[in-house]
């Protein structure tokens, strides 16, 4: 049981992990994350990689939509830009993975600024529609710029290597994913301890008063777009290096909606929420397909419902969370934690 915190410096009051208890649990979590691949089977390793890559994308979208209040229907396309950049750089220019990673992020950030930049004067719906247009235009480019992207058939790449060490299985790739997730999450969390992150939230809550407080709206909205799509690009690069294939079908509008669902379910404006939402939305389709797998014995065609059922459930999750728990899983987690905080003496 934890009784209270006595802080003697402002630094300790503003630390992310305030007390010894939370640092202890963080240590346990790290240990588990490092041990995980040694005990997990192929399937779990695959899923963990996928979840990790999704977390990075979700953190990106949450910075833009959850924190800065700029809704985007084009996030999947930015992930696609990162993925294609990585695929093109590694197959056509033979660049090493470690160089492709930041370059993919930068390329996506560049596209993010191109799309976001001019539309920064737009608010709410208009911005939403502009990002929708960007999604459709980028999809078109993925399909039709065949000489670069391979068109509908897409591209295949060979396994990435780091200084000659080839990441040819999910086990090895897991550690790359883990490091990237930790880096991205930490940087994102840091951001919201400073004036930059505060400016994002201020723009979301009341943009006019934010401007009168001395925040240059254009600059900070551009930052939000650039950061968000940079993370999308990183996520895309990891994605293509993990699956070793890329086609336009991987980044449809629906995938953008799935990312929105993630941050809503997880909790908008919460880094923890992005993590929980991404994990949740990676697991849900698997649960559905497992259940349908059992049903195949009774209804032989059950598997054909997998895709539409996923859509119904994603949609339902978005609606249910927005109506009943607008702060998402992160809020539920906070309540659980508070309950156990003084447990068993909660009163």
């Amino acid at each position, binding site marked *: 049981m934890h009784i209270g915190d006595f802080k003697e410096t402002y630094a300790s009051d*503003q630390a992310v992990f305030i007390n010894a208890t939370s640092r202890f649990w963080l240590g346990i979590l790290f240990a588990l994350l490092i041990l995980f691949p040694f005990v997990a089977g192929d399937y779990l390793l695959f899923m963990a990689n996928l979840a990790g890559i999704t977390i990075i994308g979700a953190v990106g979208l949450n910075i833009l939509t959850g924190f800065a209040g700029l809704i985007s229907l084009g996030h999947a396309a930015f992930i696609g830009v990162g993925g294609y950049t990585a695929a093109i750089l590694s197959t056509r220019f033979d660049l090493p993975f470690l160089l492709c990673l930041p370059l993919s992020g930068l390329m996506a950030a560049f596209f993010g600024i191109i799309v976001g930049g001019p539309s920064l004067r737009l608010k709410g719906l208009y911005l939403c529609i502009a990002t929708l247009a960007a999604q459709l235009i980028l999809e078109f480019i993925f399909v039709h710029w065949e000489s670069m992207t391979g068109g509908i058939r897409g591209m295949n790449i060979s396994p990435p290597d780091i200084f000659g060490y080839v990441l040819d299985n999910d086990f090895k790739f897991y550690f790359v994913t883990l490091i990237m997730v930790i880096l991205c999450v930490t940087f994102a969390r840091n*951001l919201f301890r*400073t*004036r930059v*992150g505060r400016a994002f939230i201020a723009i*979301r809550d*009341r943009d006019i008063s934010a401007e009168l*407080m001395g*925040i240059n*709206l254009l600059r900070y909205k551009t930052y939000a777009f650039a950061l968000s799509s940079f993370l999308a690009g990183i996520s895309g690069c990891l994605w293509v290096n993990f699956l070793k294939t890329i086609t336009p079908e991987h980044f449809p509008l629906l995938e953008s909606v799935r990312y929105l669902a993630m941050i809503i379910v997880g909790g908008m404006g919460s880094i923890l929420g992005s993590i929980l939402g991404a994990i949740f939305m990676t697991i849900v389709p698997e649960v559905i397909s497992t259940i349908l797998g059992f049903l195949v014995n009774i209804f032989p065609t059950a598997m054909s419902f997998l895709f539409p059922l996923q859509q119904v459930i994603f949609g339902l999750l978005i609606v249910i969370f927005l109506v009943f728990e607008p702060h998402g899983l992160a809020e539920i987690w906070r309540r659980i934690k508070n309950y156990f905080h003084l447990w068993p003496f909660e009163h």
Partner: protein
Amino acid sequence: MKILSIDHISLSFGGLNVLSDVSFDVNQGEIFAIIGPNGAGKTSILNIISGFYRPEKGKVFFNGNDLTHMPADKRAALGMGRTFQNIALYHGMSVLDNIKLGAHYHLKTGLMSALWYWGAAHREEMELRKKIEEDIIDFLEIESIRNHPVSALAYGLQKRVELARALAMRPKVLLMDEPVAGMNAEETEDMARFILDIKEEYDTTIVLIEHDMKMIMDISDRVLVLNFGQALTHGTPKEVQKHPDVIEAYLGKKKAKTNRTAII
């Protein structure tokens, strides 16, 4: 010495004249009040000074510099603080973060050092925290609520947090839009005391809009009276109170005077 000059300002929305040819000066270190009936254009003047509205005619000078075409965020950097009529706090943030936001322009952390945080950004944040705690939170007596989310606070306290945020901007001129509207007598007294203290201790010039005439007459050095977008008169509270145009604007013409209740 003039710190702020409003020079023949006119503003209209869709043919409706909000302000016509308004001019006045605000002197360094005074409390300057703008009064007038609802819809007289008081808030529009503040919006023009802080750069949210652009006047169609006329100019705004601050310390002798022409601000008329300067964007709002740059004006904030020059030292223009503001509180709002309908509280404009950031509901997703704690009291402390709201106040910290006011200091935005005085901080230097860029995007990259924000992402890295350790080192320069951390140091800056700690200095900021110290300054805010010692200069503002202590001064406005809001220690107990510093970690509360602002949306959960009572109205009067929200107004006080807004003042705290404006102080964190370290303003040379503080524009206050109805600082005591909707407050009870005790809260009003507290706020009046804070305003006077700010003037003394922070050496800040204050421009305020208020309907509470008692407070205006007690604390302000000079008063400007607006009616239908026009400046009726300005002067010390005593002079203004006696001015026939002001009495007419507030109480109606002499004939009708007996039938109407005072707005004041």
